[in-house]
């Protein structure tokens, strides 16, 4: 790896929020193309963060500051990505389902998806089925991600999928779900395409949907 990218990658893994922007700038100054900075210096760093989380070496705080470091670096890189025509790897529409206000898990998933190079449309919490459907029509995502923390709001996931089917938009997307009480069996039972147990797995699952 080029030394500039190695320094950037290390800074992201270590959650050095303040250093990431200048390290992105240093990589640009060294003449490295924006797509390579993004892929090698940032997305691959976040993949490693996800792996460290899976292995139990990283916990939520470490994952969070890594995602924030990537975000601060992306601010510098973004105009250069746009200029050189680099597209996001895919688009995800995400939200916590109707009746549920919890957004901690959803926000972590959003960060890891962005870390994996996705464009993420975050609809927030207590999202009505119609809002998901409108957003699918407008943003043409490959993936829709739904979250619920409570057993009492899990049924909203099925209601939303059923509404998407009735509106004729279900076939154009892959649906993934998550949240503490949610299981793979439940995902299958309500017609979702996949289930992820944590934010890192959610990013991996979204990538498999693109393949």
């Amino acid at each position, binding site marked *: 790896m080029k030394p500039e990218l190695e320094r950037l990658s290390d800074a992201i893994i270590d959650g050095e929020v303040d250093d990431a922007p200048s390290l992105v700038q240093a990589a640009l100054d060294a003449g490295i193309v924006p797509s390579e900075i993004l892929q090698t210096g940032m997305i691959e760093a976040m993949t490693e963060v996800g792996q460290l989380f899976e292995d139990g070496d990283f916990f939520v*705080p470490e994952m969070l500051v890594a995602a924030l470091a990537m975000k601060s670096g992306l601010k510098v890189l973004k105009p250069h990505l746009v200029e050189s025509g680099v597209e996001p790897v895919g688009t995800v529409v995400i939200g916590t389902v109707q009746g549920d206000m919890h957004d901690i898990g959803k926000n972590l998933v959003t960060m890891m998806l962005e870390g994996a190079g996705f464009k993420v449309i975050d609809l927030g919490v207590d999202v009505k089925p119609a809002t998901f459907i409108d957003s699918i029509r407008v943003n043409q995502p490959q993936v829709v991600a739904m979250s619920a923390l409570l057993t009492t709001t899990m049924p909203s996931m099925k209601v939303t999928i059923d509404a998407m089917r009735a509106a004729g938009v279900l076939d154009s997307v892959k649906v993934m779900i998550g949240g503490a009480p949610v299981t793979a069996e439940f995902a299958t039972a309500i017609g979702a395409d996949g289930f992820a147990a944590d934010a890192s797995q959610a990013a991996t699952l979204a990538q498999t949907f693109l393949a």
Partner: protein
Amino acid sequence: MTMTRKERMRRSIQHQPVDRIPTQINYTAGMGQLMADHFGVSVADLPEFLGNHMIRVDLSHPGTLSADGAVRFDWWGVGFDTKEEGYFAAVSPLKENRDLDAYPWPDPLAPDLLNDAAHTIATMGDDYFITPNFGFVLFERAWTLRGFEQFFVDMARDSGFTEALLDRITDIQLQLIHRYIDLGVDGGYFGDDYGAQKNLLFSPRMWRRYIKPRLAKLFAPYIERGMPILMHSDGQIQKILPDLVEIGLTTLNPVQPEVLDHQWLHENFAGKLAFYGGVSTQTVLPYGKPAEVKAAVQQAITTLAPEKTGLLIAPSHRMMTDIPMQNVEALLEAYRALA
């Protein structure tokens, strides 16, 4: 020999022989109303009707509602969403301005703060095991005051601020604990969620640095008086359980079967820890058949308390409105069969 509820509870969590395993059912306000209607008893009489053994007393502070009624602010100034059946911290007052000296901290020595607790102890203290309710005791109090993401970033990047915030909280909680003990509670009850469904939320290293020494301070007044300490902590907390035992935890809640393997718990902690909970509000109670609910009660007792003591059997969490009444009936039948 018939024991009072208090005696049965106290003996069971101290691993002494009991006439039968003590039982408990906690529930949300919405579920309490449904059960009261279904069984034809008043909400006030539900604890007795359901066979509860423990009462948790709260501060005499009704909370203040926002003008639109959407948010209720608790004693500490954290705003909770009123539409939700769970707990959702909608307003974290230290999110934007983290100046700890400028924050209007609540006064733990305010004169009328323990009036309701005193009344409950005076009227029900002979029969019930009474603890103060220190839910959201430390970590959860810190993150609800500061905001979840902000506090996690603080923990990762600003240990000075993190420790200063936790110290403020510890000082206030400690003063309250001394007042409750003077009032005559039977033990300590703490709630603080350190785990998610798959792992701890933060590393054991951080827990040992930030939480453990302060929690030990809060446990100490009870330990000095030989009183039991009950604690609720959700999720995968296996890695810090030995630490909790080390600083004096005697009873663990909720022992949710999907997350903490009952067999493992008993093998590793029998005699050192008593258990409180065990029947899943995530699976069997909302989705199981009545016979499965009864089997889950039996299974939890067989696995967690083969010695026929050391357990307060209960749903793992507050029951919510998604649990069908026939499963509540099955739970009660299983409880009554223990007598």
